């Protein structure tokens, strides 16, 4: 009988959700280099090998200052890592990339060879959204890779619902927007109206290089170079597309659920 077999099969398989964040994070695929690390000290005097190679001019080396790598514009293609003769730019394999402020994404200065990870929301918003966050996803142009990866979080393996985070149909029910894509001119009005439709207090999360700084479409006349231009963004998750683990880490870090479970594992 159909129902009987389905139930037995389901019960046999048991829970397929990963232990993360309580348990260890799933391994990243080897092609995914993880976060980048910039040690400007190793740079030779007038070497600009990495600047020429970067497709979205994420790496800049102004004449008198040290090299600066803007992870917001970076597509993580790791060309610069290969091109750098002295190994100033290296891949750390760390999946944690989410930051709260746009300037935190710029590496290279003395203090910040690596990313300063996103802190928790301010106390009022945290207490409100800590256990129940409903997001309205807006695809503002882009290649749909970030949407696919965000969607993966809903599957039984990642199971975003266990954190109380849920994607809803109507912005009226939502607490925030999760924006993907470079916000094309066509989608500007839709994005504005969706943001206006979300009741206060609300947050905005920009996922993927496009949403942060326009990604591969940066500078195109039909594109607004990311959501930051139109809306106040609370969380930036770089990557093209960011790995589901990175997005999940960003979300639960934002809600302060990470230390909580992190504390559990010490």
């Amino acid at each position, binding site marked *: 009988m159909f129902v009987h077999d389905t139930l037995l099969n389901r019960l046999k398989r048991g*829970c397929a959700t990963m232990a993360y964040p309580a348990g260890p994070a799933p391994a990243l695929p080897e092609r995914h280099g993880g976060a980048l690390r910039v040690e400007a000290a190793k740079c030779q005097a007038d070497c600009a090998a990495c600047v020429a190679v970067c497709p979205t001019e994420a790496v800049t080396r102004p004449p008198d200052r040290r090299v600066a790598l803007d992870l917001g514009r970076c597509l993580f293609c790791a060309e610069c890592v290969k091109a750098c003769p002295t190994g100033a730019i290296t891949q750390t394999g760390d999946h944690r990339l989410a930051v709260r402020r746009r300037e935190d994404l710029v590496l290279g200065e003395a203090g910040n060879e690596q990313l300063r990870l996103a802190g928790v929301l301010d106390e009022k918003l945290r207490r409100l959204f800590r256990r129940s966050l409903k997001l309205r996803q807006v695809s503002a142009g882009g290649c749909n890779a970030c949407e696919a990866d965000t969607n993966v979080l809903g599957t039984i393996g990642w199971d975003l619902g266990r954190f109380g985070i849920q994607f809803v149909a109507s912005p009226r029910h939502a607490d925030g927007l999760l924006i993907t894509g470079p916000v094309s001119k066509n989608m500007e009005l839709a994005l504005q109206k969706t943001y206006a439709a979300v009741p206060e207090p609300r947050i905005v999360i920009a996922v993927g290089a496009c949403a942060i700084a326009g990604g591969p479409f940066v500078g195109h006349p039909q594109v607004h170079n990311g959501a930051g231009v139109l809306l106040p963004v609370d969380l930036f998750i770089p990557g093209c597309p960011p790995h589901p683990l990175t997005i999940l880490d960003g979300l639960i870090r934002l809600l302060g659920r990470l230390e909580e479970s992190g504390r559990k594992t010490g």
Partner: protein
Amino acid sequence: MNLPALVLQLLLLLLLAPLVSGVIKNWKAKLQNRRGPRPWQVYFDLAKFLRKDMVISEHTSWVFGFAPYVVFLSALLTGLMVPMVHLPAPLSLFGGVLAVVGLLALGRFFLALGGLDPASAFGGMGSSREMTLSAIAEPALMLAIFTVAITAKSTDLSQMALSTQSATWKLLNPAHVLAFAAMFVVLLAETGRIPVDNPATHLELTMIHEAMLLEYSGRHLAFMEWGASVKQLVLMTLLLNVFFPIGLAGPGAGAAALGISLLAYLAKLLALSAAVVVVETTNAKLRLFRVPDLLSAAFVLATLALLSTFLFH
């Protein structure tokens, strides 16, 4: 009707309803091999909605703001008329099963009007489908109630429960089994469960119950969701305490009997929730115009129940 029983049942109603829908969501997740939200997640959602601001559409009139309160209060009032733990329900004098069905219809009436008010296409679609399907479900519900009321010679819920409780063989009586099956299908239709409507869908075109709430936000949405879960609890309690009144404490019951009755009630409630979860996870949503066939099947079941009241004894 004594005040403490009333207040206690009101609190039980308010606290238990979100828990039941949370448990159903959690068990559904478990059956889909994922951990899923914790059963008390619904409380967090409700608390958050209450705290949030509201965005109200410019086209709405006073009916939009009035509807959530009617939905919430009518659901609560039906809860007080249904015996949950103690046999004569606190407000059983104010109305029997006909008043319960009437109040649920009142809530649905204003819910549909709330859907139509903001002049959005989704709201109209939700209202139209909700009213259509509930109209088709009504005769099956009424005939099942009639079957039980006829054997109990009364429309008072406590009387029905007593008459079923008095004769134990009544539980296996074919009339009761068929009526229970019909009522179970109507329960799925009324609370918008999978075969009829998918509560967790994002696609507005397939929504029925959810489409009417698309325009609500903040505390209005909280009252609507809470009312819906109270209505679900009321219908489940109606189903349980009329067809399986085992352990239901009689009028003069002491604290111990009440305790047992509460436990029995919770156990039965979890059993019914399990049944609902199994149905939801193993079935797909029916196409809109296949649902009337399901509901007319329920009507046939109820008619068979009626026939068997006097064919078999």
